[in-house]
C-alpha cells in the first residue's frame, strides 16, 4: 500500500502566523485528503484535493483559512493561515488505496501559542 510522509512532524507557532504542511506519497494518486484531529477528538475531513482542480472543502472549512495546493499526483500542501490557539491540532494527509482503504500519514502536530 501507499507510504505517506509529512513535513514538519511537529511545530510550535505564534498566533497570526501561517504554517504550510507538506504531504508526499510514494505512488501516484488521484485524490488526497486532509484531516484535522483536535486534542482528544476524532478526525474531521477538511478538504479533498484533486490534481489540476480546486480543492473541495467540507462545511466549516474555507479556502482562505486552509489553502491547499496539489501540483502533481504525488504531492500536496495544506496551509493553516492566520493561526489561533484553536488551530492547535494534528493535521493528517490521507490517500485511498486499491481495496478502498485509506492510508494516513504520520501527522503534523501543531501547537499555536
Amino acid at each position, binding site marked *: 500500500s501507499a507510504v505517506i510522509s509529512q513535513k514538519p512532524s511537529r511545530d510550535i507557532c505564534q498566533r497570526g502566523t501561517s504554517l504550510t504542511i507538506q504531504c508526499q506519497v510514494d505512488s501516484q494518486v488521484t485524490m488526497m485528503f486532509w484531516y484535522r484531529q483536535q486534542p482528544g477528538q476524532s478526525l474531521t475531513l477538511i478538504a479533498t484535493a484533486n490534481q489540476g482542480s480546486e480543492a473541495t472543502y467540507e462545511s466549516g472549512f474555507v479556502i482562505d483559512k486552509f489553502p491547499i495546493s496539489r501540483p502533481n499526483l504525488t504531492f500536496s500542501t495544506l496551509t493553516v493561515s492566520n493561526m489561533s490557539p484553536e488551530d492547535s491540532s494534528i493535521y493528517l494527509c490521507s490517500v485511498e488505496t486499491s481495496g478502498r482503504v485509506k492510508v494516513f500519514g504520520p*501527522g503534523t502536530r501543531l501547537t499555536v501559542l
Partner: protein
Amino acid sequence: AQSVAQPEDQVNVAEGNPLTVKCTYSVSGNPYLFWYVQYPNRGLQFLLKYITGDNLVKGSYGFEAEFNKSQTSFHLKKPSALVSDSALYFCAVRDMRSNDYKLSFGAGTTVTVRA
C-alpha cells in the same frame, strides 16, 4: 448523510480477557466499514475492513469484526487482549454509493488493557 457512533469512550479489560469495542453506523446506502487504531504519538493504522462478502472479517494483530446489517453494527473483537492493545480505536464508514470517497469517523474508544 453518513455517521458513526462509538457509544463507549473507554473500555477497560484485563489481559487475557475478551475485548469488544462497539460501533454502530448510519448510511443512506450500503456501507464500507473500517477499524483503525492510533497508538500514542503515532499515526492512524488500518486494522480491518468490511466491503462485501462474509460478515465476519479478520484483520491485523488478531482482531476481528462482525458486520450486522439488521443492527447496523460493526463491533471490533479480540478473543484475548494484550497490554500492547492499549490504544485509541476508531470506527469509520463510507457509503458504498458515494463517489466522493469521504470517510466518516466515530469519536473513538480508548482501550486500556491491564496486566
